[in-house]
Structures are given as C-alpha cells and as structure tokens.
C-alpha cells in the first residue's frame, strides 16, 4: 500500500525505528480489525525499543520505589502469614475471622512468639484528610509476671486466658502539604507538574497529538468509512482506498504512542519529576501515639504511655516550595524548571542519594501500683507506681549506591536515654547504637550494630561482648516468601 510504504521511508529516518527487526511489519493485515492492527504495530515497535527503555527505567528507579517495594513486600508477607496464625488459640482465631468478616480489620502475627496483632481498618477512624488515625491491638501470650515467676508454681500460668495480656495502641499523624508522606495533600502540585511535563513532551513528540487529530478528522470525514463498524470490520472488509488511508493513520498513531512513552520517560528523569517520591519521602513527619497495656493480676501491672516523634529528611517538597519562592517570588508556586533545578542542586550535594534523616522521640510511661498476695501466703509483692521518661535522637543515611541507583548500604545512629528517677528499683540509663545495614544480593539485609550502654546491665542481648558496656549484634534479616 502506497501510503504505508511512504510512511516507512519517513520512519526509516527516525533513529528509534532502526531497532525494528526484519520481522517488524508496519502494515495492517487483511484479517485484522482497527484495534487489532493498532495494538500489534504498537507492541512490535515498543518491544523493539524496550531494551533501551528498560535500562533507563532501572537506572532512574527512585529510592522511594525501593522503600515502597520493601514496605509492600513486608505488608504482603504479614498478610500472607495471617492465614496461618501459628500457635494462636481457637478463641483468638474466631475473633480474627469475626473482625475480617465484618471488614473491621485484619489480623497478623505479632513480633513476639504467640502474639496476635489486630489492625483495625483505618477508614473507621477518618477525621478529615489532614489527620491519619490508626488503631491496633496486640494480644500477647500471657505469662506469669517476671518478679513472681520464680516464686509461684508454673501451673498457675494455666489460669491465664488468651486476652489476659492485651495492649491497645492508637496512632495519629499529621498529613498536610507541610507534614506527612502521602501523595494526597500534594495532588494539585503533582498534577500541575505533570501537565507541564506533558506540554513539554508534546513539543518534543508532536507526532502523537498530530496523529490523534488526523485520525479523529479522518474517521469523521472519510466517506468510505461511514456506516462501517470499525470495532468488528477487518481491513479486508473495507474499500481498498479506505483501508490504505486508515492504515497510514493507524501506523502513525501507533508509532507516535510508542515514541511518546519513550520521550515522557526520558523527560520524567531529566526534569526531576521521577524524583518527586524521594522529596515526598523526606517530608517532616509528626506523629503521636498512645498505648494501654492491660494485664491479669498474675501477668503483671497495667501500663500506659504516650509518645511523640518528629522526623525529617533534608531534600523535601517543603524545600522545593521555599526554593521557588526564593528564586522567583514570595507567592510563586513551583514549576517544572524549579523542580529540575532544585533536584539538580540536591543531587549535586548528594542529599537525594544519601537521604540523611534526623528524628527526635519523647515518651512517657506509667506503670500502675502492683500489690499481690497469693491465698496460701507464700508470695506477696507490693510495688509503687512507677513512671519513666524516654528520649531518643536518631540520625542516619545511605552510604552505598549501586550502579543502577539503588541505595544498598546505610548507617543509623540512635541514642536513647531513660529517666526512671522516681523508681528506687531502677537506674537511669543511656544506650547508643550504631548500625550498618547492607542489602545483599538475594534481597536480604545484613546488619551489624555496635551497642554502648551506660551500665553493663543495660547492654541487653548481644552476639559479641567487647567489654562490660560495649557489645556487637549482627545478623541477616530474611524476608519470608
């Protein structure tokens, strides 16, 4: 068909099409419908281009995508594990099924052996877009309270029921344009960037909008196609002249679409648009949580506490907004040129690659007074109310970046101070932990931690004791499949 041959000659000059092999057939087959031909031609062109595009896509993979994958995989693992609830009793299994059945939430295994974690559906607690609330309950396998354990018969543990050690946690975080890491508050900004990105793409690949306009005009105006249903008609059903005209427009739009995606991908990387998740992931995060742990008398005293945390990364969307105001005007909203320039600056400074973080946490905890006497008088224990304050500072960042841009090695330093001044049985303590984590080839994480404690008794469990107050912990975190 003459028009197809002419188009082929034109396309031969386009570098992208040189990847087309001898099998690439840039014409519609007689037995194909309009849709069939469009999709086949587009698929063949895209596949020919795929090798180059995939390499770029991998190189441009964002930090957040990697983090997001890890979180999703973790969630998927937890969800999968919820189908087999280990040693949980039938009473707890029934409650899990009840919650899931009513759409109230889901149940997973807790970190501690035999524990169950009930995640309540966050939609139940929505109080506006700016406030994210979540509720969960942790049912631990109840055990005899440690100070009593050596003095009471082990058989007493059988008196404890499934829910005799239950903790309820309520979490709140602020989700606005200045705080939080959800896309929703930034939807308008992202949408504006995208419209601009598409404008730039259409200037660099005018073939697609031109081909779309040409096809719509042709379908409406061409006499030979009136009354023909192009959903079902094949090219052999069409008058030869109409088939040839349609074919040339089909090939033009299929090629235009393939080239458009390639160009948009390249612009997404070069303008910094694809780094938006990294900027979002570095936004400050403000959250407060509270918990109440209710225990049977044999399992120990009740405890409640509240914790606030504030965390931020250096290169973030707040910084981009400030950058636009400084560069242009006080009211300026960031545009694509600001994004490109800002991301370029942050990449040069290394802050997007190393993603340094800083976090502050403050926690207050109160343990109820505890007074127990067994009937036979063999054991009595009387403890006063105890309060403690915890404060922690943490910082960290990535150290190693793989050739494909994936961040593989990171360091984290956390210091935690616990003030238990009003508890005569305990001493204040300071613990500092420096952790190095490295992603391994099989997707697992290897980690080594150097722990220092102000008193030997606070060093905790370590794999290697270097001195009374310094130890090493190491291991490999395997992800369950």
């Amino acid at each position, binding site marked *: 068909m003459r028009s197809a041959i002419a188009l082929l000659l034109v396309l031969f000059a386009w570098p992208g099409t040189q990847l087309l092999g001898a099998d690439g057939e840039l014409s519609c087959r007689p037995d194909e419908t309009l849709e069939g031909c469009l999709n086949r031609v587009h698929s063949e062109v895209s596949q020919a281009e795929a090798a180059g595009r995939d390499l770029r896509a991998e190189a*441009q993979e964002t930090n*957040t995508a990697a983090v997001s994958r890890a979180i999703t995989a973790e969630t998927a693992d937890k969800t999968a594990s919820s189908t087999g609830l280990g040693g949980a009793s039938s009473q707890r299994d029934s409650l899990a099924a009840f919650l899931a059945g009513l759409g109230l939430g889901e149940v997973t295994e807790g970190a501690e052996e035999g524990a169950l974690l009930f995640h309540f559906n966050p939609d139940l607690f929505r109080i506006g877009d700016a406030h994210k609330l979540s509720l969960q309950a942790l049912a631990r396998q109840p055990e005899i309270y440690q100070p009593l354990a050596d003095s009471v018969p082990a058989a007493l543990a059988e008196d404890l029921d499934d829910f005799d050690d239950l903790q309820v946690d309520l979490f709140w975080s602020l989700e606005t344009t200045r705080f939080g890491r959800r896309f929703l508050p930034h*939807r308008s900004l992202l*949408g504006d960037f995208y419209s601009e990105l598409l404008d730039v793409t259409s200037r660099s690949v005018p073939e697609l909008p031109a081909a779309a*306009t040409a096809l*719509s005009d042709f379908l409406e105006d061409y006499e030979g196609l009136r009354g023909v249903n192009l*959903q079902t008609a094949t090219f052999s059903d069409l008058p030869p002249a109409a088939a040839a005209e349609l074919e040339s427009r089909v090939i033009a739009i299929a090629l235009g*679409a393939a080239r458009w995606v390639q160009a948009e991908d390249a612009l997404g990387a070069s303008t910094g648009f694809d780094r938006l998740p990294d900027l979002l992931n570095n936004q400050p995060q403000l959250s407060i949580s509270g918990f109440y742990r209710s225990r049977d008398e044999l399992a120990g005293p009740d405890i409640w506490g509240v914790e606030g945390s504030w965390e931020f990364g250096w290169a973030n969307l707040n910084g981009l907004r400030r950058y636009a105001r400084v560069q242009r005007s006080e009211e300026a909203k960031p545009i694509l040129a600001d994004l490109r320039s800002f991301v370029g600056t942050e990449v040069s400074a290394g802050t997007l690659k190393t993603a340094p973080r800083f976090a502050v946490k403050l926690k207050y905890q109160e343990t109820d007074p505890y007074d127990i006497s067994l009937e036979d008088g063999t054991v009595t224990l009387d403890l006063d109310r105890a309060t403690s304050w915890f404060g922690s500072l943490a910082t960290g960042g990535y150290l190693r970046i793989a050739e494909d841009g994936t961040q593989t090695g990171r360091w984290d330093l956390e210091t935690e101070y616990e003030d238990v001044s009003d508890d005569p049985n305990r001493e204040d303590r300071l613990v500092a932990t420096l952790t190095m984590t490295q992603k391994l080839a099989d997707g697992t994480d290897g980690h080594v931690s150097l722990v220092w404690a102000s008193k030997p008794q606070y060093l905790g469990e370590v794999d290697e004791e270097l001195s009374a107050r310094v130890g090493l912990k190491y291991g490999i975190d395997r992800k369950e499949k």
Partner: protein
Amino acid sequence: MADVFKVCDQVPNGSTLKIDVDPAEGAYTTQVDFAISNSAPESFPHDQVVPEGVRKVLESPNAYVVSIHIHCLGEVKVTVSTRVVDPQGTEVCAHDFEVECDGAGSHLFVLIVRTRREQGGA
C-alpha cells in the same frame, strides 16, 4: 503487552463517555487529552480526572481520540475504566485499561470513539 488501544464505534448521538481512574489516591498522576474531529482539543488534568472522573457528552457527528496518560511514581496498580452510556442509560461500550507499576514510568492508553452518523446528517 496489554492492549494500549481500544475502539468504540457507532455509539448513539448524545451518549456519555465516562472515564474513571482507580485508586483515587496513590503513587501516580494522570491526565486525559481529547482530540475531537474538526474541533479544538481538550485536556483534563489530574484534579479533574481523579477522583470524580471525566464525563463527556458525545455529539454526533464526531470522532474522538482520547489519550489517557498515567505517570507512575512508585509501586501502584492503576485501573482506567471507560464506559459509553447511551441517552437512555444503557451501557453500549466498555473497556478497561490496567497498569501495574513497580517504579517511576509513563504509560499511555488510547480510546477511539466514533458516534453513529444519523441518516441525512451532515
């Protein structure tokens, strides 16, 4: 490779094209561009596409080439539902596009819709 192009032909005059993108919130952004025969093109940016959806009355005689742009920014599965409903409310054409993203990248879907030309029409 999933189909990028879909066709709805001979839809009745006055039908409504409905385009809905799910999920309403996620690691992606979108825009819908219309090329309309012998008319100026129209664009619907993200805020007009999500979450309310695009609604367009298809007037005869006309042909529409609708480009649905999705740009992923992380791990997300996006479904684009396109429905043509005639003036009586009957669904006359339905196509879904779906993309499962594991990182940043662009995706394009194209829907071609042509209205039925009434006898004696222009």
